[in-house]
């Protein structure tokens, strides 16, 4: 069997999540090709060629793919699809955007957000915000799949795949990129961090999120937020952890002033160790926390920072 994995990247670096998607491909079993569609993305190609278990890297370097526009990328993947039984992308915002388009163009169903592989046609995925786990069999000859990376470990980067440049240009000409407004941060990505400290409505305002900075610095942590904190305008949308935001599973997740709505729990309950800091002893977050402390976060945070 042949598997096509679409690399997740920003033209300068390969996202670590791709290494986990390749792991899912290995569990399916077959010859794995990695597609890098982008523009001026030589560094990504180099990193892609080192991904363990990948036999070939296909490169489409063209301005049409610079911003991963779904209209253009989906046409490219559809054109390449004939040679593969499985097509995998990472279930991040880029893959979630173009993959269902690929599936529809190929006239097959998509299996979204898989967290395990049972066989080459049967996959495990969470539904209802992770409150139920479905085992789903694809009846289509071609499987289009997005992979939730919290379910798979990263593969090593000691490979040496053949690089093949393609000159295929699929510009649908119906959409264009206008601008990006990206959050610049020195901290690790939420998806890659081994420690995450998140604030919720209890933080009261955006300024108070600075109380998390010192702790994050000491732990090398990423900073996240609940939907309530994002909706209230305390912090930007890309910090949201939850059912419809980022799904994370770090070694340590510290929830500060977060009550623990099922939608938030869906995004972090697979973390190895969960700490809850909340002044409400009845908050549902305590039901999933390994260590809880019932206290005012404005007392707890400075003390925690000083004692780390």
């Amino acid at each position, binding site marked *: 069997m042949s598997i096509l994995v679409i690399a997740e990247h920003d033209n300068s670096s390969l996202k670590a999540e791709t290494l986990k998607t390749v792991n899912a491909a290995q569990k399916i079993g077959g010859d794995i090709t990695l597609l890098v569609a982008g523009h001026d993305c030589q560094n990504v190609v180099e990193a892609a060629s080192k991904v363990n278990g990948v036999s070939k890297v296909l490169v489409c370097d063209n301005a049409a793919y610079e*911003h991963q526009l*779904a*209209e253009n990328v*989906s046409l490219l993947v559809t054109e390449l699809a004939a040679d593969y039984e499985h097509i995998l992308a990472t279930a991040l*915002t*880029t893959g*979630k*955007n*173009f993959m*269902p*388009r690929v*599936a*529809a163009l190929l006239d*097959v169903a998509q299996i*979204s*957000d898989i967290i395990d592989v049972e066989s080459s046609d*049967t996959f495990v995925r*969470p*539904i*209802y915000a*992770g*409150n*139920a*786990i*479905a*085992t*789903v*069999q694809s*009846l289509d000859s071609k499987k289009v799949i997005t992979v939730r990376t919290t379910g798979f470990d990263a593969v090593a980067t000691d490979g040496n795949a053949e690089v093949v440049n393609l000159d295929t240009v699929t510009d*649908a000409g*119906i*959409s*264009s*990129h*206008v*601008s*990006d*407004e990206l959050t610049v941060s020195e901290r690790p990505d939420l998806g890659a961090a081994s420690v995450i400290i998140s604030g919720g409505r209890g933080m009261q305002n955006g300024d108070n999120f600075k109380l998390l900075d010192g702790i994050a610095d000491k732990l090398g942590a990423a900073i996240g937020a609940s939907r309530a904190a*994002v*909706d209230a305008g305390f912090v*930007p949308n*890309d910090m949201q952890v939850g*059912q*419809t935001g*980022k799904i994370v599973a770090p*070694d340590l997740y510290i929830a500060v002033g977060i009550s623990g709505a*099922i939608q938030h729990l869906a995004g972090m*309950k697979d973390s*190895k*160790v*969960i*700490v809850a800091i909340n002044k409400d002893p009845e908050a549902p977050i*305590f*039901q999933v926390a*390994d*260590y*809880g*402390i019932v206290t005012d976060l404005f007392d707890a945070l400075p*003390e925690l920072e000083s004692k*780390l």
Partner: protein
Amino acid sequence: MKVLVPIKRVIDYNVKVRVKPDQSNVDLANTKMAINPFCEIAVEEAVRLKEAGTATEVIAISIGDKSCQEQLRTALALGADRAIQIETDESLDALNIAKLLQKVVEEEQPQLVILGKQSIDSDNNQTGQMLAALTGMPQGTFASVVKVEGEKVNVTREVDGGLQTVALNLPAIVTTDLRLNEPRYASLPNIMKAKRKPLAVKPAADFGIDLTARTKLLKVTPPAQRQAGIVVESIDELVEKLKNEAKVIS
């Protein structure tokens, strides 16, 4: 311009679902149901476009058995002008839903189709993108701002790194994210008025589409439960536990 808003009836977002003992599916008997929250945001956005004079007509559509008329009436109470129910007792794959919607798009010729980015039951996040592919339209998924400007619509999207704005030729597909708007509450007079708005019922079988399922649900199980942890009395104790018991900090 016409705006089409497909909506889905789902479990109320406050309700925690239970798995059936025979693992065949989740148990939705006697469960509170509601319009999917992202679909409600889609209805609100369409109604605002009409109030701003950009849209001329807002059509809500849902695919399901008779019970989904309840959510269509909600959409009408929120300001949609008319509704269409595509009637089926089957639970259809997103691809088949998109194929049915494609037929309605061909018939109604909307300039904009606004959908929720995902439903909170199946959590698929597929239908809008699939409909875009089938109709050949561009897509602005996970939208937090939608601005119609002449022959184009600019959509600001919530992406992993922050925000991305794209320009799409009309007609186009938009899927909503949480920050697009805050849906209004339907007023009592509008709920009464909604009862008199037109709601057309069309059997799914009349669309001439092969609706054979492409996936098979083999089983549904409850997720692994976390062991309840302990409550510590002080920050000192917390730090000590994290260092020596959990060994996640040094």
